[in-house]
Structure formats: C-alpha cells, structure tokens
C-alpha cells in the first residue's frame, strides 16, 4: 500500500493506493495523524485506487474521526462500490462528520463552500 499526501484547497488530501488491512493500516494512520496534528479541520482521503479495506483500515478512519473538531469532517473520495458498502455497514456513512464524494470536483466544491476557505 502506498500513501501520498498532497492538498486540495488547503485541505490535506491523502491518496491511498493498494489494500488497507491490519498489516498496512498503520501507514494510513500515520498520514492522518500528521494531517490532524497540523490543525486540519477537514481531511480528504482519495480511495480511487483502494480495492480492499477491512476492520484495520476502518478503525483508523474511526480513530481519525474522534480527533476531528465538532465542525470538522472527513471526506472519503471515490470509494468503490464494495468499499462503500462496508462504510455503510459499519456506520461510517451515518456519521455526521463523514462526507462521501463521487469525485474530486464535488469534494473541492464542498471545500469552497466552507467558511474561510480559499
């Protein structure tokens, strides 16, 4: 699994490529911790290249959610149908601080709509 961090409209954008499991999720956790420690209120994760996630990866997402401020959110961008199904199953989609985006354009539009965003 590869994790690359860039940014979209000043928000950290974590791009993951590969399978997120118990053996690899620590790399994603480290990237999210770095983004959150830098004061990010919104963190985006691009999952377009992720074909698999299990409870190891899901736990990392829940852990990141707990560290967000109440008005912050986690943007999950382009999860495939199976990954999205798991998100729904474990209740991630119902979390008020989670937003799912079909593409980066809609994710970016949500960022522009934020107060104080560039």
């Amino acid at each position, binding site marked *: 699994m590869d994790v690359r961090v860039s940014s979209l409209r000043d928000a950290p954008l974590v791009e993951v490529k590969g399978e997120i*499991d118990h053996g690899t999720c620590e790399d994603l956790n480290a990237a999210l911790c770095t983004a959150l420690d830098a004061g990010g209120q919104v963190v985006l994760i691009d999952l377009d290249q992720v074909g698999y996630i299990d409870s190891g990866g899901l736990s990392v997402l829940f852990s990141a959610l707990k560290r967000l401020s109440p008005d912050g959110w986690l943007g999950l961008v382009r999860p495939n149908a199976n990954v999205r199904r798991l998100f729904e199953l474990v209740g991630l989609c119902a979390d008020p601080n989670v937003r799912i985006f079909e593409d980066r354009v809609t994710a970016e539009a949500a960022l522009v709509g934020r107060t104080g965003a560039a």
Partner: protein
Amino acid sequence: MSLPSDGFCRAIEIRSEACRLVEVRRFVEEVAAEVALDSERMFDLKVAVSEACANVVEHSGCESVPLEVRAHVHAERLTFSITDRGCFKPPNPTRQAYGNRGLGLPLMVALMDEVTFVRSPAGGTRVSLSVLLSGR
C-alpha cells in the same frame, strides 16, 4: 456455468503474521474465480476470511505455527475454514493506539451466510465462513 461439485477443495498455509494477510486474500480470489463467484461475494469473502486470519494473528499466540486456510464446496455452499493451533491471548494494549474497535467479528457475521467457531480439545480454534452458491 454449473455449480462446482462436492469435493472441491483447496488449501494454503501461511505464517501467522499481519503482513501475510494479502496472501490469504489472493487465495480467496483464486478460489472465488474457480467457483465463478461474483465480485461482490468475492469481496465479502476476502474481508471475512482476512478478518478471521487477523484474529488469529492477534490472539492465538502461535506466530511460529502456520495458519491453515482451507476452502471446500459441500451441498452448494462454499466454506473457508481457518484453523489455528494456538490458545487465546489478550491483545497487546500497546500495539496500536486506535484498536480494532471489535469490528472484525461483526463484519464476518454481516457478510457471510453462516459463521461457526469450534474449539478443538487439543487446543486451537477453527472458524468456518460459508456462502451459499445458489439462491442468489
């Protein structure tokens, strides 16, 4: 394509380590392709089998003993059995700060048609995860 007949059987052994879980999922993919499962059911099986193996890696305390994953078809159902020869040990509290929130078992139950756990008198546990091959 007709359903695979009773007697279909495949097996692998891996070292009981988190970094080997990817090998288990490749095995599930191979088996799923052989029995012509659709991609959604294949994904469900990959998650369930991988979670069961991750539990062994986490709890069974048998790093030095290989973990066996066996797939077989019987009565129009495909079953993966994960057998370890260890005994339960509690998770290491310092291993990961975020924990796994206990999501592994609920995922197995939610994604599979049948889940069973059998403890062997000789030590170790067998988890069986089944999907029906017909009626979907």
